[in-house]
């Protein structure tokens, strides 16, 4: 419990530093070009890495078969995200698809 709380404090500290350092040290600190370019790809890279592991490794091992209900649901959700750009619609379609596939025991 104590260790977990210390970890949370550490998470808070590094998060706060990313938010504070540039606005605090702005006049003294020049963020190099490569770092600014790199930051542009942080959300895409991190989020996709998580999506792939959640969807393709449902039980901790790779499952690329048609029996992977999460894979089918995610593909349909991705299509909705592409067509609508709406996060809530994406979640709704993905969850309902997963529940239907689970119910019919695919």
């Amino acid at each position, binding site marked *: 419990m104590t260790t*977990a709380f210390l970890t949370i404090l550490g998470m*808070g500290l590094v998060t*706060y530093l990313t938010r504070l350092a540039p606005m605090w040290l702005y006049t003294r600190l020049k963020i190099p070009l490569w770092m600014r370019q790199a930051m542009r790809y942080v959300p*895409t890279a*991190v989020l996709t*890495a998580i*999506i792939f592991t959640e969807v393709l490794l449902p039980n901790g091992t790779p499952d690329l078969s048609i029996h992977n209900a999460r894979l089918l649901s995610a593909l349909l959700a991705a299509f909705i995200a*592409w067509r609508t750009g709406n996060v*809530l619609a*994406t979640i709704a379609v993905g969850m309902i698809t997963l529940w239907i596939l689970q119910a019919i025991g695919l």
Partner: protein
Amino acid sequence: MTSARQELLAGIRAEMPVTLGVTPFGLIYGVLATAAGLPPILAIAMSSVVFAGSAQFIGAQLFGVGTPGIIIVLTTFVVNLRHALYSFSMAPYLQRLPLRWRWLLAYLLTDEAYAVTIGHYRDESKALDHKHWFFLGSGLTLWIVWQLTTIVGVALGAQIPPTWALDFTLALTFIGLVIPALQDRPNIAAALTAGVVAVLSFNLPYKLGLLIASLSGILVGVWMERRA
């Protein structure tokens, strides 16, 4: 000239529609954190100490599989690096503020507060004088909604059976955020690289693969951008 009070209220009003979208994520975070085995008090503490949605989702998940603290902190740092970019673009407008204002506003600098506030700062038809009150209004509004929805989510969490597979909402939320951002080749390449490396490195302990996959994706994105 717009008064401090008017700026504060305008910031609150501007953030309101955004809180509608954030509410389900706060609830889902609370539910997920509980499902991952985090004690309720720590799940709630994370929302006020860290105050960063996606990092909290990942953090809760890493806690769930027994990841060592140092890896959780490192992963949080990489996931939240984008805030440095926001802070950097906000910095020129905040230079004349006393340091204690910058310390407070930095704590409130989330994706959602930044999105709403930066447009207001860039609108030069309005004087700069009290715009930090607008930032404060939008940031605090989001903070309050995030804390409240976390508490409700944690309270609900224990009552939701695992067969509902609510943990899947994390992947779906991220799909909803990532797909519309895949507008150019470097971003698509970054996504595919990160995804494939993540699956290939799934055997590494403590989800270290997530860190390696993210860094690979970022490198490929920068490399493609420079080559173009």
